[in-house]
């Protein structure tokens, strides 16, 4: 199966479900979609239908949330009512916990799409004498399943039984019977379990649930927390085996399946204007390829953001949706600065075509940045994305981490046919290509901006270092910042950087000082 194709479907909410349904039907075992972005891709269509899946992890790793999302999505989107049997929190607590994610449990309960049964086990109230079984639990579960016609069941966390009851032997044989019983009822079940020392779960639940096991992890590295998910086991099905970062935010849970992608990006022939006619000319007269990735690098103040603004402006003029991630400036600063060189992006923001996302790189870990960016991209559905400057992310992690993250991000954007422009801040003139070598191989087009100084004069130059799949100009083109944006000069007789004195081309231009 081709995961990369299905990835694209994430971007457009209208095609998402059909895309996933297609996945769910794609051979192998029948599966039940979780509706969790990313998880359905990793598992090739969701959890094993009609069978139990164990979701384990430490405290606060997101087990309950994952299980509840599975349940709520089932009821709301896949016409599969569900039963939640909770052992730790009562109905009110559960309802309160997920209300902030927009899950209206009372309404689902009212509509008979969800039944919640809180099983309270108070050790101090209970005396044990002689033989017993857990038929009471079965009866309750059965009653709840019948009440709503449930196709999905969540048991959260059944291990609480071990804390409440003394007779382990009875418990274990009853759990075995319970999972068998759930299978016979053909309900898709999620069982949560607390992570144990040296074992997946404290009580060895993995022993009973042999169909699928998902492990959640919550790590803090360099004071930055990252959540990860791994499919430890999935009997009878292919699945991604890596650790995937996931995110819990106001919209719930989303997993990032990027590193499972093969190199299968589409390679469209369509071209898009850079927004600077002269630059389009240099790019064999037509501009960038749609869906390609463009790196704009240069030292401070060379006009990287301005070039990006031209690109955004041109895309918005074509009616395309543009997303711009800012890691240095606030949107207001950028809008003001660009207005000063005659590029007014404000109307596009007002029209809803252009959206900014500004964040301090140090605010999250790399993975979280990556997941957040994915989510924003998926929510907004842009055809053009700008990251300004991508180099600021380098401060968050190691070189290898950043490279891995960018590979995944670019991979994702390419697969989704999103034209991406990344700006890169070079520390100094002599450093050209060094900091970028890590990501340059991922880039289709690389534009370098350079400054030089001759006496009292300050000159700006631009050249296309590479542009895959097109005959591009090798010219180093001088340009100036005017109140109508970047103005590339027709022919620079002695381009900057060569050290030659030629001031003729500078005449009549206006420096906006951006």
């Amino acid at each position, binding site marked *: 199966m081709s995961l990369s194709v299905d990835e694209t479907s994430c971007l457009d909410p209208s095609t998402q479900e059909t895309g996933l349904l297609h996945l769910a039907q794609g051979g192998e075992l029948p599966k039940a979609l979780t509706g969790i972005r990313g998880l359905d891709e990793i598992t090739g269509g969701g959890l094993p239908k009609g069978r139990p899946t164990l979701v384990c992890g430490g405290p606060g790793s997101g087990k309950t949330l994952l299980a509840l999302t599975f349940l709520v999505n089932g009821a709301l989107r896949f016409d599969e009512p569900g039963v939640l049997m909770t052992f730790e929190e009562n109905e009110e607590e559960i309802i309160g916990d997920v209300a902030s994610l927009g899950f209206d449990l009372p309404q689902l309960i009212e509509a008979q799409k969800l039944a919640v049964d809180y099983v309270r086990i108070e050790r101090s109230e209970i*005396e044990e004498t*002689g*033989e017993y079984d857990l038929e*009471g639990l079965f*009866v*309750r579960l059965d009653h709840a399943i019948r009440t709503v016609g449930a196709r999905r069941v969540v048991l959260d966390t059944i291990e609480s039984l071990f804390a409440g009851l003394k007779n382990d032997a009875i418990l274990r044989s009853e759990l075995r019977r319970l999972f068998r019983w759930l299978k016979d009822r053909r309900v898709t079940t999620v069982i949560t379990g607390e992570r144990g020392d040296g074992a997946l779960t404290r009580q060895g639940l993995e022993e009973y649930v042999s169909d699928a096991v998902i492990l959640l992890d919550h790590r803090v590295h360099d004071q930055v927390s990252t959540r990860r998910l791994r499919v430890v086991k999935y009997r009878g099905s292919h699945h991604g085996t890596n650790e995937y970062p996931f995110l819990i935010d106001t919209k719930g849970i989303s997993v990032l399946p990027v590193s499972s992608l093969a190199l299968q990006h589409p390679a469209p022939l369509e071209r898009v204007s850079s927004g600077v006619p002269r630059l389009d000319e240099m790019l064999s007269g037509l501009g960038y390829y749609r869906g390609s990735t463009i790196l704009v690098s240069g030292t401070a103040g060379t006009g990287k953001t301005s070039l990006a603004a031209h690109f955004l402006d041109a895309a918005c003029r074509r009616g395309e949706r543009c997303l711009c991630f800012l890691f240095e400036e606030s949107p207001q600063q950028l809008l003001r600065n660009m207005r000063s060189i005659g590029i007014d992006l404000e109307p596009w923001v007002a029209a809803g075509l252009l959206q900014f996302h500004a964040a301090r790189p140090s605010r999250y870990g790399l993975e979280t940045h990556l997941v957040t960016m994915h989510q924003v991209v998926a929510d907004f559905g842009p055809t053009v994305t700008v990251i300004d400057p991508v180099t600021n992310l380098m401060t968050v992690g190691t070189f290898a981490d950043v490279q891995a993250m960018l590979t995944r991000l670019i991979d994702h954007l390419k697969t989704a046919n999103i034209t991406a422009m990344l700006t890169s801040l070079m520390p100094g003139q002599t450093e050209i290509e060094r900091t970028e070598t890590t990501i340059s191989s991922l880039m289709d087009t690389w534009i370098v901006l350079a400054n030089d100084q001759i006496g009292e004069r300050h000159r700006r130059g631009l050249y296309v270092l590479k542009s895959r799949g097109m005959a591009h100009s090798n010219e180093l083109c001088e340009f100036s910042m005017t109140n109508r944006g970047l103005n590339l000069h027709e022919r620079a007789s002695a381009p900057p950087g060569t050290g030659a004195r030629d001031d003729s081309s500078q005449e009549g231009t206006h420096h906006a000082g951006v």
Partner: protein
Amino acid sequence: MQVYNTGLNTPSVAAGPLYSLRLYVAGQTPKSVLAFTNLKQICEQHLQGRYAIEVIDLVKTPQLAHGDQIFAVPTLVRRLPEPIKKIIGDLSNTERVLVGLDLRVHQ
């Protein structure tokens, strides 16, 4: 729900509080039959004339399991005197049942 011979109509033999007991079972299984037999015997011996036993079959009335938080069967619930006490199992260990019902102090 079935209410069994309570012995309440006969004059009380021993003074003390009234015991309101519920026995939750799931069908007529050997365990549930044994639990009822054991319970009846213990009550007759220690609570004569001041107990009532309700037997609730959860197979017939599953919705009643939630109220008393029943998950294991058989479960004996002492509703009165308060506080509520639960004893799970077939009640075969008389000593433990007596301790569980607060009829004998734990040794």
